[in-house]
C-alpha cells in the first residue's frame, strides 16, 4: 500500500514538473491583453512572414540534414563494416567528436570554411545543413550502429552479391530494409536536434526557428511562446514515434514478387 502511494505521488510530481510549464506556455500564449482568450499568437505562427519563413527554413534544414546524414553515414558505415572493420573505432571516434566540442568552438572553427561556402555555394541559411550534419553525427551514428550490430551484414551482402546484386542494390534492397528502425531513429533524432538548434544559427547570423523565437520573445512574447510550444510538441511527437519504431519492427511484410 505504501509503495503504491509512493508510486502515485512520484508520478504526480513528475506530471506536475512536466505539465505545469507546458500548461503555463499554453495559457500565456492564448491570453488576451484585456482578459479572455485569443488564438492570435498561434495564428501568427503561419501569418507572421518572419516566423513562417523561419519555420520553413528549419523544416528544410531538418530534411536536408537527414538526407545528407543518411547519404554520408549509411554507405560509410556499411562499407567500414564490410571492408575495413579495423577502421570502425576510428570512424566511431570521428562521429562522436562533435559531442566533445562546444558549439562556440565549432562556430569559430567553421567561420573560415563558411566564408568559402558562402562565396562558392550560397549565403542561404540552408547552408547550415553542412554543420548540422556534423552536429547530428554522434546520435545518428549510435542509432545506425546498433541496428547494424543486430544484422550479419557481411553474410547477407555476400549472399546478395553472389546472386547478382551490385553494391547499390545490396545497400538499398538488403541492408537498409533490415536496419530500417535504426535509420528512422537516426532521422527522427536529427530532425528533433535541428529544429531545436539555436547556438550555431544565432552565432552565424542565420534565422532559423529558434533564432526567430528568441527575437520574437523581445517584441511579441506570446507568439514566441506559441512557437516554442509548437516546436516542443512537434519534437515530442517525433520522439514518441521514435520509441514506437524502436520497439522493434519485425520483418516488413512487403513482397518482392
Amino acid at each position, binding site marked *: 500500500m505504501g509503495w503504491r502511494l509512493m508510486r502515485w505521488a512520484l508520478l504526480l510530481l513528475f506530471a506536475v514538473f512536466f505539465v505545469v510549464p507546458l500548461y503555463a506556455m499554453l495559457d500565456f500564449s492564448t491570453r488576451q491583453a484585456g482578459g479572455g482568450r485569443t488564438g492570435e499568437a498561434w495564428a501568427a505562427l503561419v501569418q507572421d512572414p518572419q516566423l513562417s519563413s523561419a519555420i520553413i527554413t528549419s523544416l528544410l534544414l531538418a530534411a536536408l540534414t537527414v538526407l545528407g546524414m543518411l547519404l554520408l553515414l549509411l554507405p560509410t558505415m556499411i562499407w567500414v563494416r564490410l571492408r575495413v572493420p579495423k577502421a570502425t573505432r576510428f570512424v566511431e571516434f570521428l562521429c562522436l567528436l562533435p559531442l566533445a566540442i562546444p558549439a562556440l568552438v565549432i562556430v569559430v572553427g567553421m567561420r573560415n570554411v563558411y566564408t568559402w561556402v558562402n562565396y562558392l555555394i550560397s549565403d542561404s541559411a540552408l547552408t547550415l545543413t553542412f554543420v548540422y550534419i556534423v552536429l547530428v553525427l554522434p546520435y545518428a551514428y549510435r542509432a545506425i550502429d546498433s541496428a547494424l550490430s543486430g544484422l550479419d551484414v557481411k*553474410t547477407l551482402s555476400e*549472399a*546478395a552479391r553472389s546472386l*547478382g546484386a551490385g553494391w547499390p542494390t545490396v545497400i538499398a534492397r538488403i541492408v537498409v530494409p533490415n536496419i530500417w528502425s535504426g535509420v528512422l531513429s537516426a532521422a527522427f533524432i536529427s530532425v528533433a536536434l535541428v529544429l531545436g538548434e539555436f547556438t550555431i544559427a544565432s552565432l552565424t547570423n542565420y534565422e532559423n526557428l529558434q533564432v526567430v523565437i528568441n527575437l520574437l520573445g523581445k517584441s511579441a512574447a506570446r507568439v514566441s511562446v506559441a512557437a516554442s510550444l509548437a516546436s516542443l510538441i512537434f519534437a515530442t511527437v517525433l520522439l514518441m514515434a521514435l520509441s514506437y519504431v524502436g520497439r522493434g519492427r519485425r520483418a*516488413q511484410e512487403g513482397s518482392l514478387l
Partner: protein
Amino acid sequence: MSTHRTGADSTGVEVVLDGLTRRFGDVVALDRFDLTIAPGEMVALLGPSGCGKTTALRILAGLDRADSGHVRVGGRDLTEVPANKRDMGMVFQAYSLFPHMTVADNVAFGLRMRGVGQKQRQARAAEMLDLVGLQTQGGRYAHQLSGGQQQRVALARALAIEPSVLLLDEPLSALDAKVRTQLREEIRRVQVEVGTTTVFVTHDQEEALAIADRVGVMSEGQLEQIAPPEELYTRPRTRFVAEFVGLTNRLPATPDGAAAEILGSQVPLLAGSATAGAGIALVRPESLSVAPSGDGNATVVTRSFLGSLCRVVCELDGGPEVVAQALIEEATDLHPGVRVRVTVSRSPVLVVAGD
C-alpha cells in the same frame, strides 16, 4: 550411402584454379594452389581450420581476391570479374536468408536481379522449393524456419539462378547431427539431379567422404591429395592425409623395398612410403586383428561398443597403445586385461620415416 557419381548428363562446367596465392599479412592462406574440377563433379575441400579451404572458395566466388593466380570457369578467365557477375550460387555457413523477405522472395531474388519476369520468378521459386521439399513454406519468413529449413531455402536460392558453379561453404556446420546427415544426403541428391559443378568446403571428414566425388585434403594453403573418398582413405599419399582422414595407429615398421615388417608381418607399401631405415607405419584400426592368445604381444586396455562393431584399445608390449576394430562376435572374449595377439592385415600401408 552416397551415390558417388558425377552427373553424366550434367550441365556443369569445368573449374580451374591455377596457382592461387593469397596472403593475409604474414600468413599465407593459399600457396600456389591448383585445382581442376570436371564438369558436373562435386569436390569437397577438407582440412583443419586455417588450411585455406574457405579462402579458395571465396576467391572462386569472387568474394576475395588472390594475390596471384587465375580462376577459370568453362574456359573463361574470371579472375577480374566481380562476384555479382560470376554466375555462381553460394550457400554460406551462417544463415544468410534475407530476413525482410519471404522464403519465396528469397529464392526469387537472384532471378529478379537478372530481370526475369514476375510470373517466371514465381514459377521457378515454387519449383526450387519443391526440389528441396519446402513447397508449402514459400510465404514464411526466415525466423519462422528451423536451421535445416533455412539452409535448404539457401540451397534452393543458390540453385534458382541455374548457376554455372555451386559453392557450399560449410553449410551444415551450424546444424545438429541428425539434420546434418539428412541434409548432406539431400544436397548430394539435388546436386546429382541438376548436375551443377559443385565445391563443398568442410572440416568434417565424414561429411566430405560421404557425399563428394573427390575429396581434396588441404594443409597450410596447399592441396595434400585429391582423390575419390575410397582411395583417399585406403591409399593416403602423405602422413598428413593418413592422420587427418580416419583413425590411424602409429606402429614401428622396418621398410625394405616394396614391403615393410610390421608386428612380425610383411605388409606391402603404398606409393610415397619410406623404403629403408626405421619407419612408422600408419595403420587403420580395421587393418589390425586382435585374438586372445596366452603368448600374445599385447594386453587389452578398453573395449567400446559401436553398434555392429567393437573398438578395442590394446597396449603393445613395450610399445604404444593401438586401436583395433573387430566384429562384435569376435570381440566377446576381449575384456580389459586379457592377453592378445595383434596382427596386421595385408592391405598396403603408408610408412613414413621415424620421428
